[in-house]
């Protein structure tokens, strides 16, 4: 196992007519030994490109990549001692499950044997190594419950089984770093959640360094020791999942992490109150110290309270839609602040009807303020 360090890593693509496109921009990232690091962001944010640069499948345009303290920018993928799990699994269709799992071991053996044979003039212990590989395949397949499938071909497996084989192939080699590129996105919702839990347990058992890419923020939050939120080729926040949720570094992270997403309203601060579209809500004395300035206000749906229309410190709204989820209810409200979503306790919402008037209130202590703009930074109160 090893740590992975990216220093000012960037990826430039040459477009037509000499124009360059910067897919990854000056990414600084230090992943510790045994850490489960998840890169998350919308499609096109550069997360997969970053992962592929770590793997050696994509050339690094700028910056330095180190695995285990060794700079590997120009080291080919096969010599980086990494394992890569692809979104479509990339199992070799003409090989059985056992052969797929053993493949990486076999190729490595061939290389080493060739070298040993060249140096000593004897092909040593080939049978012994075969036995070692067989034992390793058996061990891995037992871990992943693949025993019964070893002699099947990939085309005879279900999506979930293929996914396991892909993980098995990665584990078998016992690499320094595991790289996962959206490995669950081809599974159905239920299986995705099950496999997610298994991956988490697997990580604990292997104590492996894992870099994992996904666009699903829920998957990212449940898996990550370290969550790296990316957007437009840049890291927006690099922290624990909990911290990204509670203290989003900027407006993008605030809107991306959490379901339903945070309510964010553009407006300005005026004498300790937030004003948007002519409607003002007092925040508190400490907010007054920030002065009068343009900013965005964010508050999470589960921090919203519904109060009587026209109650003090509330925003009048009408209920646009009610989504009952059993234990809780999501209420979408139309207000002068735009569409606001409230996540409420189911018991408290039984009497609510769509079309009714309501007041939106929230606790200023749990509100977030951001600088204006798409990636406006967090304003510390």
């Amino acid at each position, binding site marked *: 196992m090893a740590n992975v360090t990216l220093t000012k890593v960037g990826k430039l693509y040459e477009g037509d007519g000499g124009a360059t496109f910067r897919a990854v921009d000056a990414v600084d990232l230090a992943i510790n030994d045994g850490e489960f690091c998840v890169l998350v962001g919308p499609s096109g944010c550069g997360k997969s490109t970053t992962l592929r640069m770590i793997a050696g499948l994509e050339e690094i345009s700028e910056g330095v990549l180190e695995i285990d303290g060794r700079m590997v920018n120009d080291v080919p993928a096969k010599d980086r001692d990494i394992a890569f799990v*692809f979104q479509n699994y990339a199992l070799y269709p003409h090989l059985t499950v056992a052969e797929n799992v053993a493949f990486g071991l076999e190729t490595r053996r061939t290389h080493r044997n060739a070298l040993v044979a060249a140096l000593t003039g004897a092909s040593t212990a080939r049978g012994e190594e075969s036995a070692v590989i067989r034992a390793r395949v058996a061990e891995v397949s037992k871990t992943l419950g693949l025993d019964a499938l070893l002699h099947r071909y990939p085309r005879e497996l279900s999506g979930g089984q293929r996914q396991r084989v892909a993980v098995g192939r990665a584990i078998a080699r016992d690499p320094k770093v595991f790289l996962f590129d959206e490995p669950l996105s081809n599974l159905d919702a239920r299986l995705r959640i099950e496999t997610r839990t298994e991956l988490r347990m697997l990580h604990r058992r292997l104590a492996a360094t894992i870099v994992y890419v996904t666009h699903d923020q829920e998957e990212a939050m449940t898996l990550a020791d370290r969550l790296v939120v990316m957007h437009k080729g840049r890291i927006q926040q690099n922290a624990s999942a909990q911290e990204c949720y509670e203290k989003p570094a900027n407006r993008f992270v605030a809107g991306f992490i959490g379901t339903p997403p945070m309510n964010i309203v553009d407006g300005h601060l005026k004498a300790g109150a937030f004003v948007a579209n002519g409607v003002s809500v007092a925040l508190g004395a400490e907010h007054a110290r920030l002065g009068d300035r343009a900013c965005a206000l964010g508050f999470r749906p589960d921090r919203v309270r519904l109060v009587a229309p026209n109650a003090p410190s509330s925003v009048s709204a009408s209920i646009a839609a009610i989504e009952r989820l059993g234990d809780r209810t999501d209420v979408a409200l139309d207000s002068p602040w735009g569409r606001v979503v409230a996540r409420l306790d189911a018991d408290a919402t039984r009497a609510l009807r769509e079309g009714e008037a309501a007041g939106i209130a929230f606790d200023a202590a749990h509100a977030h303020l951001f600088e204006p703009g798409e990636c406006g930074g967090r304003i510390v109160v």
Partner: protein
Amino acid sequence: MKRSPLANTMLWFVLIMGTAAFIFPLWWMAVVSLETPQRAEAAITGSAGISLFPPSPQFANYANAVRETGSVPWMGFIDALANSIVVTVLVVLGTVVSSSAVGYAFARLRFRGRNPLFLVMLGTMMLPGQVTMIPLFLLFRQFGWIDTIMPLVVPAFFGNAFFIFMYRQFIAQIPESLVEAARVDGLGHVAIWWRIVLPLCRPVTAICAVFTFIGTWNDFLGPLIYLHSDESATLAVALNGFKNQYGGLEDVHLLMALSVLTMIPCIVLFIAAQKTFVEGLARGAVKG
């Protein structure tokens, strides 16, 4: 789909007529190969009618044909058969190996001038063989390759434009991630081609191998131009010996007998490989 009885009858009629038209020359070849020399000559010259069954099959014709191939009894046939096998196997091997390797390069490697090169390669398909025949002959004569199998075999190891094109199209459909997985697993391009791509190209390889086999096995012009001595002749050229040697048609029954024997490997191979073609087509269709 339900067809009316009339449509069915029409369909069957057309199919049977088509089959008969294709089968008849082969059938007649087999019939003549079993005739007596007199009847065979009469049938070929048209002085007697065509019979669909030989009245008294002369199975000894086959033994005689084999014995009288070439100038040395029995050995002439063995020589020709061995030559045919060696040339055909080498040409099939060379064509499959080189065409798939070049197809892989065109499909998967990025290099300067790839597309122009590909067009040039496709352009060579437009050249009729007759145009290159004489320059090639002069070239191979310079090499001192006349009366060796080299002129027949060596070009195969430099690829065949049509099969390169087929391989390229097929390989381009193989997911990029498979190649990347192999790279991570420690393979270089040669190993990826040999261990991953080639096994996946089985349907193309079957088509390439069968067509190359049939083309080479039956090739008459190539061996006729380059192989002069009796011992180096292939079966296709040796067949022609029955005509040259005696000038007339008195041995046409032997010619037909040897023709039947020569055809057998092609038919067997075609039937055997048919399954792979179909399998390849079916797998492509249900890929999930």
